[in-house]
């Protein structure tokens, strides 16, 4: 917003010239098989819209890991043009420029940070503004405290100073604590919460794993050797539910993230229960149950482990894969009542069932795996297009759908808490693995570099585990 029209300078000028030949494509996602890794220089999807961001280089500050993680988090937020200084050497850059002010890293490098104001006094704002930066981030160490200073380049001052006591790199909380710092920076810069301190659960070889959103710290979380499917987060980020095959039946479990302790969800009979989904208040678990009559949706009261309730009576059709709206009032789900599976919606008590995602009867392929976005405005799902699956997004208000992907097979989308990123399964690189797409820019990146991962579930913003003071 604030950056519109201000991201001036040479880079944007060139981009604008280049883009004049191309019709301006904004919100339409550009699905390509291009694997985008690391920091980009001057690749502008929406010129002039995203604020430029520069991370001030500092050698020998002892914060290389923190710097690398924060830089990647801010890049992966897809909300900035991350500017890489040529050669990474801002001293030469600064002195060779026409700006008369002293280069920023020369000062304060060996000295402890003395506060935002003092630092700001030395930063060459016009220089960074000329480079297209709206924000500049400086990371320094004072004793055992990491001082994170966010400069508002255009305003010529410090926007926010964050102090955090980070554990040593490699300790269990380290990365999540750094991710929280990155989220605080994003919040300070744009007033929007980030998604750095989040994780994705997924299934591989029948087991549930977690991985940080930046692809680090993959860890096994399912507790047994039995085949597991369909992990789903509780909205507090402290628990998840999943299904496990037991002698051909499907048993649902709720597991605590911290302790790994799991509890079987009280169900009756010998049914196959699957696709669990928490209500937003985490009091209720909705799920699918396959019986002789077919598959239908049920809810159970998790708090008292009781009160099984049937929401659909399909008889000759199946109803499955529930997902709650964030206000808890509605449930989107898959129903085969039109013949092929399509996306339906109903009130959370099972009344008022109706078609949700429009389709052309006899033309549109099967639609499956809906997930309601955290902001309530969209439902992501996948749909069979010419024999392969593609990720779609339904606009809840207008009830229109748009196709997000077109390269390879793409399925099982799951929303990041910012409601603009989706993780999904794609075989675009030759084997099925997890990818992340940003709906605003269309940028796609791999989350994993290994095959066989599927059924991802993106966490909410995870509860604080370490202390950091703004």
């Amino acid at each position: 917003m604030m950056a519109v029209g201000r991201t001036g300078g040479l880079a944007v000028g060139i981009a604008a010239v280049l883009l004049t030949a191309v019709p301006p494509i904004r919100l339409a996602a550009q699905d390509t098989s291009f694997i985008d890794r690391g920091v980009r220089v001057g690749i502008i999807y929406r010129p002039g819209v995203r604020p430029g961001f520069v991370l001030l280089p500092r050698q020998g500050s002892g914060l290389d890991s923190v710097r690398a993680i924060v830089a990647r988090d801010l890049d992966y937020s897809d909300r900035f043009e991350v500017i890489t200084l040529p050669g990474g050497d801002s001293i030469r850059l600064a002195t060779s420029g026409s700006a008369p002010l002293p280069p920023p890293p020369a000062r304060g490098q060996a000295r402890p940070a003395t506060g935002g104001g003092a630092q700001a006094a030395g930063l060459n704002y016009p220089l960074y503004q000329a480079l297209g930066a709206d924000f500049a981030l400086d990371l320094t160490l004072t004793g055992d405290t990491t001082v994170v200073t966010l400069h508002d380049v255009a305003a010529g001052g410090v926007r926010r100073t964050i102090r955090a006591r980070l554990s040593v790199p490699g300790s269990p909380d380290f990365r999540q604590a750094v991710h929280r710092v990155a989220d605080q920076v994003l919040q300070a810069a744009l007033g929007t919460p980030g998604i750095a301190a989040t994780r994705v659960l997924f299934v591989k070889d029948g087991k549930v794993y977690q991985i940080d959103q930046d692809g680090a710290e993959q860890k096994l979380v399912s507790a047994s050797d039995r085949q597991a499917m369909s992990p789903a987060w509780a909205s507090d980020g402290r628990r998840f539910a999943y299904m496990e095959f037991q002698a051909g039946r499907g048993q649902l479990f709720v597991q605590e993230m911290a302790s790994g302790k799991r509890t079987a969800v009280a169900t009756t009979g010998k049914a196959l229960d699957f696709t669990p989904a928490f209500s937003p208040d985490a009091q209720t678990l909705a799920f699918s149950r396959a019986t002789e009559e077919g598959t239908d949706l049920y809810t159970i009261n998790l708090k008292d482990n009781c009160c099984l309730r049937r929401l659909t009576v399909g008889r000759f059709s199946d109803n499955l894969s529930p997902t709650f709206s964030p206000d808890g009032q509605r449930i989107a789900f898959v129903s085969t009542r039109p013949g092929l599976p399509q996306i339906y919606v109903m009130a959370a008590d099972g009344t008022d069932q109706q078609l949700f995602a429009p389709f052309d009867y006899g033309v549109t392929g099967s639609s499956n795996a809906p997930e309601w976005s955290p902001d309530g405005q969209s439902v992501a799902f996948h749909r069979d297009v010419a024999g392969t699956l593609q990720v779609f997004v339904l606009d809840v208000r207008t009830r229109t759908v748009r196709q997000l992907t077109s390269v390879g097979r793409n399925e099982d989308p799951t929303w990041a808490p910012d409601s603009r990123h989706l993780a999904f399964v794609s075989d675009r690189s030759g084997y099925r693995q997890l990818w992340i797409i940003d709906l605003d820019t269309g940028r796609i990146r791999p989350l994993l570099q290994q095959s066989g991962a599927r059924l991802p579930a993106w966490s909410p913003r995870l509860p604080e585990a370490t202390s950091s003071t703004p």
Partner: protein
Amino acid sequence: MKPVSLLFVIGLGAAVVAAGCGKKNTEQVAPMANPDSAAAAERARQDSIDAARAAADCAAQAEAERVASQRASDSAAAAARAAEGIRNTVTAMIHFDYDKSNVRSEDAGILDQKVAILQANPELRIRVGGHCDERGSDEYNLALGNRRAQAAKQYLVSHGIDASRIETQSWGEERPAVDGHDEGAWSQNRRDEFEIIGGGDNLRQP
């Protein structure tokens, strides 16, 4: 001559029987150790004829026993083969079209054979497991696999088999029969598997 040559040809069991006969024969001959007259010689000649006859009888008896035991083991093998055949008929898979759960007409005969065996063996209980290929949606395939298992069960029930004798389960696409990412593999993976879970001993032919 012939019995003697047979003795060499037939198996070990028959040879042991023949040896038993021979021993008995020697015992009969033993008291005749001191012949002192023509009468004795005549008796000895007669004895040797008897002995030869006895040997021949013995060999014939051995052969009969051999044949009988062979017949017994043949019929046991035949019975085992028959049971195996019944078992194979019970567990023969049926297959499905993509994203379909109706029993294909060409597979109805496979289920009809199961109906006959289930009717001839009232103790027999089976489990039907529905499976899918990897093309469809992972979670939807659990519902589809369930439909496929139910389709087979309903077919059997509609042909007179008590529903309580048939369990069903769905594995979705989680247990492919064949690895592979083409229609050749997929068509084999879209299937119902049948498993005997009770009363599978001494299966009777319908």
